[in-house]
């Protein structure tokens, strides 16, 4: 609630500070986020879900200074139902036991925006995050389920397109590396995969100038 009010105030401030068409010197901008991630742990996700990609939905906020420097905080969520499996000699055998995995990353990045034209701002950014991972399945003991969190890092690059004075659309690609969650057990250990990250194509709808 407080965060939402802050974004709203920031947007108003930005608008006030730049009543003309020039970009504001300081802007706080909320955004909605959609990402489709291709997971690095291909065999692990394939065995469980039948494929190794999936959507994240979320949002966040940006602080843009002098139209060049940006600091961004985002939170998103991936949740998918699959089934437990066994992996042997590279072949997966689905066992029909329902499983739900939930990934919730919170990322903080800092980046630089290039002034390509008045309506397009290419950018690059890098940062760190914390990834929450929960895994539940049928016939589980409490110890069988997973609820853990681990740090990782990200880099991304893309461009922001101004669709309207108050609405922007950012499209980028992000690479994330998240060790410490996969690879300790389960299919990921059998597959020798230890990275919960991957490459994501992201779309952000940005509110504000």
């Amino acid at each position, binding site marked *: 609630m407080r965060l939402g009010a802050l974004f709203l105030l920031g947007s108003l401030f930005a608008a006030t500070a730049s009543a003309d068409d020039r970009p504001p010197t300081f802007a706080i901008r909320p955004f909605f986020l959609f990402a489709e991630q291709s997971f690095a*742990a291909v065999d*692990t*996700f394939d065995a*469980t879900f039948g494929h190794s990609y999936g959507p994240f939905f979320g949002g966040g906020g940006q602080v843009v200074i002098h139209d060049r420097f940006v600091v961004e905080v985002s939170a998103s969520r991936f949740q998918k139902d699959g089934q*437990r*499996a*066994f*992996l*042997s*000699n590279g*072949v997966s*055998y*689905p*066992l*029909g*036991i329902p*499983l739900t*995995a939930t990934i919730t990353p919170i990322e903080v990045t800092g980046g630089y925006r290039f002034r390509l034209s008045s309506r397009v701002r290419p950018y690059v950014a890098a940062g760190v995050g914390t990834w929450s*991972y929960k*895994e539940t*399945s049928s*016939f589980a003991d409490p110890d*069988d*389920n*997973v609820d*853990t969190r681990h740090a990782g890092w990200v880099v991304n690059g893309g461009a922001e397109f101004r669709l309207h004075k108050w609405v922007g659309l950012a499209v980028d690609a992000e690479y994330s590396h998240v060790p410490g*969650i*996969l690879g*300790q*057990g*389960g*299919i*990921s250990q*059998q597959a020798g995969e230890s990275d919960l990250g991957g490459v994501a194509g992201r779309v952000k709808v940005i509110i504000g100038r």
Partner: protein
Amino acid sequence: MNGIRLRVGTVVVLAGALAIGLRGQTADESRFAIVQNLGLPAIDEGVVVDSTHRPGAEVELRRAAIRASVARSAGNGGGSRYVPGRVIVKFKDTASEGARASAMSSVSRTAVMGARPNYADFDIVRIDPAEDPEAAALALGQRPEVLYAQAAYRIHSLFKPNDPMYAEYQWNLPLINMERAWDIQPLAGSSITVAVVDTGLAYQNATITANIPAFRDDEGTLYPALGNVTIPYAAAPQLVGAGNAGRIVAPHDFIWDSTTPLDFDGHGTHVSGTVGQLTNDGIGTAGVAFNVKLMPVKVIESTWDYLFGAPHEGDDSDLALGIRYAADNGAKIINMSIGRTGAAGSAPVVESAMRYAVGKGVFIAVAAGNGYEDGNPVEVIAEIASRLPGAVSVAAVDPAKAHAYYSTSGSYVELSAPGGSERGFDRYGFVWQQTFDYRFTETYLNPPDSYTAPRFDVLAYVGYIGTSMATPHVSGVAAMLMQQGITNPAAIEDALEKGAIDLGTPGRDDLFGFGLIDARAALRGLGLAR
């Protein structure tokens, strides 16, 4: 009461047999016949406290001695490791008839090619029984026309028996986490056929007529001929009762060359019970995969098979035929609670058959042997399993998950399962299932003056001990894994080994292999991170 039932049952069976005339499958019509589906249901003796079916037990040793003695009486070289007069040979496909004849004559002037048995990809060469078949096989194996040759080594069961009931007696099933495995898969293998390659199975009522000759036991005592006798035979109610006769698939007998593999020993019936005893019916004991279909394949000759005049003795060739038959007739799991000792690699005919079966998608579980306190000899069949992904050798643990005192150790041990032990556990250390009440079947253990014809219609819950008892636990769980979706035999082995509870030295070791099977862990498989 039971005595009255026994007498009444005998009279009715005899009358029935005489009334319709005796028809049935035989090898020697004048000496032995089975009239199928004629007979009364089994008499249930309940729990029989029997501590004799365990490795090293005095009575167990006497059983083996009498069996060997009976075979010698029959001139079959009982007691020797191989069947005299037979060499198993696999010629190269490119070898001409002339080359084959030349090869045979080069090793023995008496060598004659026998008719190739059904389900065989090998031949049996007959030689003079006085000749050494091992030497003949060695010479033949060195011929360029020959892929392999071996003597016809005898195989035998690897069990040891005693009594019943899940809550009180069946420590073995909770030990491998079966209750929670059944939660995951309540069907318990209903679509899978498990072949129990063993002494046969008590799967139908029948009436048997036989002419039983005299024999001498291991001490030279003469047991008189019993002459023509009629013997009642009953199906085990807890395997095929209550409308479950349809679970028996393609039975076959390689000892009698028939399709009626009746168990005259009790071992095969007990082993089958651990695989798939009817469960959750409020009666007796439970089995691991209690809905599986069972394929009894008889390849072991019991003492009574000898005395009834069976044409085959149960050697490597019979085992190989049994394995191939099971693979060709729909079995997805083969349980082999059997074995023999010898040099590793000395059973190429069995190895070839096992590779054939696994190649057809069949998982095989083999008993690792009961010889730990008897010099710990190499178990030839189990050793093959260790080299074959999709086949496993199974050692035994006691109720405390400790190494069972008899369970053979070696680099070829891959998994462990409950085989039981009476040491420190008494009757609560046995593996219990329904099988024949040995007091009515093993009458040759009595003195000659009380030696009578057996009856195979008195069943009871009897405890056995041995790696023979451990092996069907693995077969049952493997059947459930296959039903759960792991269809590749090598992957089943992988799942069992990765899901096993590591015992003894961390990692694989020679006593426990990869550890004690955990049915729940194997069936539940893996998530992404755990």
